[in-house]
């Protein structure tokens, strides 16, 4: 029988599964399983749920012939196989920059920067949002939202605009101006809250429960979190299908660091990379360092703190994935450290001055922490290392504005410039 062209035909049974290789939700704490849906906390123990998969065979060729976006890994994500043809921002496949100048400045042999400021809204959050919004549509949500430290709000507002969904995003009212503007411009509802991120997060948990909206990092969190895996997949593929010896990731909720590790484990399990050691290191700002403090104290439980740092995108005082970030650092032979605000600014300047990459404050945290871990002898300068830059410095101009100023201001007269140039030895 030939396929009918009648528009009223029922959907073909061969239509792609709404969630691709995803099969169920699994509690990370107790292992209980639940059907795919909008649950995010275990009915048994409140533990976080994550996606359980049934991957088939996936080859290098399957991936390499895919689109130049994170959708080349669709067969490893909870998305339909035709996701690349749907209305979304097609994030990912950002540059892996060989950072020889920064390596030389730090006395390292081989260093790369995975530069996620190249995503559509200039942060790695486009990856997680793309998957969360796919799930939102499959689950029938027409309004999506989030609790945000800034980057996520813009990513949700932009992706919702493109997908034709309503958005209502929540963020602390003291956010950087750049992040408020780059969210509001997309036309959804932006609610700023007189409180810190943890208070915004709590509010959104209550709103999500009562209004029936899809909050990407609350009730869609199991799907959302999987987007961070694509950072790990891309690093491995861009290195020529192998794992780096060391990775340094910023820690806010702790999710990114754990998902990069998960990506590496999956690639090993699928036979796509060799099972070589890949130590994962975490970076925090001292003004919000609950995970680093727990690591230093040898604790498994993360004591919440009240954040006070210029690295607002990392200012989560009660990080839900903190214990898992500690597990990952311990299991892989990594470590977790934190750096002060002035070191963060210096980190931003160092990356900019050596590699021409302007990172937001979170990137400054990562660069400065790399330096600190090298000084402490915890990172091997001889071993290949990848650091993650998760966002664009243009969104956090305030942090560096006091130190990034014109060298001189002169009158439009040649003699005046000559005098300046001679004085400076230019």
């Amino acid at each position, binding site marked *: 029988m030939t396929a009918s062209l009648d528009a009223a035909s029922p959907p073909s049974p061969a239509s792609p599964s709404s969630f691709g290789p995803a099969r169920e939700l699994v509690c990370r*704490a107790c292992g209980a399983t639940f059907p795919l849906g909008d*649950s*995010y*906390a*275990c*009915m048994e*123990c*409140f*533990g*976080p749920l994550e996606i359980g998969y049934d991957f088939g065979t996936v080859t290098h060729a399957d991936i390499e012939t895919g689109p130049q976006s994170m959708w080349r890994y669709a067969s490893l994500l909870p998305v339909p196989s035709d996701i690349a043809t749907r209305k979304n921002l097609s994030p990912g496949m950002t540059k892996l920059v060989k950072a020889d100048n920064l390596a030389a400045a730090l006395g390292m042999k081989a260093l790369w920067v995975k530069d996620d400021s190249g995503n559509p809204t200039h942060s790695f959050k486009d990856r*997680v949002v793309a998957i969360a919004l796919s799930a939102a549509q499959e689950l029938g949500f027409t309004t999506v939202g989030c*609790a*945000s*430290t*800034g*980057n*996520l709000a813009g990513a949700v507002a932009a992706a919702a605009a493109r997908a034709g969904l309503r958005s209502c995003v929540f963020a602390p009212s003291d956010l950087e101006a750049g992040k408020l503007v780059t969210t509001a411009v997309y036309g959804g509802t932006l609610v700023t809250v007189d409180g810190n*991120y*943890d*208070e915004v*997060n*709590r509010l959104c*948990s*209550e709103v999500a*429960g*009562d209004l029936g909206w899809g909050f*990407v*990092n*609350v009730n869609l*969190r199991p799907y*959302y*979190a999987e987007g961070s895996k694509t950072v790990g997949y891309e690093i491995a593929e861009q290195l020529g299908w192998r794992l780096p010896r060391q990775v340094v990731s910023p820690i*806010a*909720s*702790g*999710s990114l660091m754990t998902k990069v590790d998960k990506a590496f484990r999956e690639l090993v399990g699928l036979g796509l990379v060799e099972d070589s050691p890949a130590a994962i290191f975490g970076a925090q700002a001292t003004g919000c360092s609950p995970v680093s403090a727990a690591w230093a104290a040898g604790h498994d*439980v993360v*004591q*919440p703190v*009240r954040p006070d740092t210029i690295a607002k*995108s*990392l*200012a*989560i005082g*009660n*990080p*839900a*994935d903190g*214990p898992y970030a500690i597990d990952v650092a311990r299991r892989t032979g990594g470590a977790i450290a934190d750096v002060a605000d002035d070191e963060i600014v210096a980190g931003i300047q160092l990356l900019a001055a050596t590699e021409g990459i302007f990172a937001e404050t979170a990137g400054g945290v990562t660069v400065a922490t790399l330096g600190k871990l090298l000084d402490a002898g915890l990172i091997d300068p001889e071993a290949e290392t990848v650091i993650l830059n998760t966002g664009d410095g243009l969104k956090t101009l305030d942090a560096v504005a006091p130190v990034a100023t014109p060298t001189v201001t002169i009158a439009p007269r040649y003699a005046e410039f000559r005098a300046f140039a001679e004085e400076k030895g230019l």
Partner: protein
Amino acid sequence: MSVSVRIPTILRPYTAGASEVAADGGTLAEVIDAIEVDHPGLKARVLDDDGSIRRFVNVYVNDDDVRFAEGLATATPDGTSISIIPAVAGG
């Protein structure tokens, strides 16, 4: 002493769908015991086998995370509002 307790969606099967319940008790521990009488099963969802607040549960007394206060011994004077919220994160 009567306090109000906001119940997250995930625990509403224990409260016949109610999003808020009233209870008596001078401390958070006493309030949780009182809720258990009217809504059996709920306590074991909030506290672990050792009687501590579960790792992935946040409890707020008048907007303050009890981990910053006295935990289960946090005072709950008359009129206090308590929220029980599953921990989630992600910026």
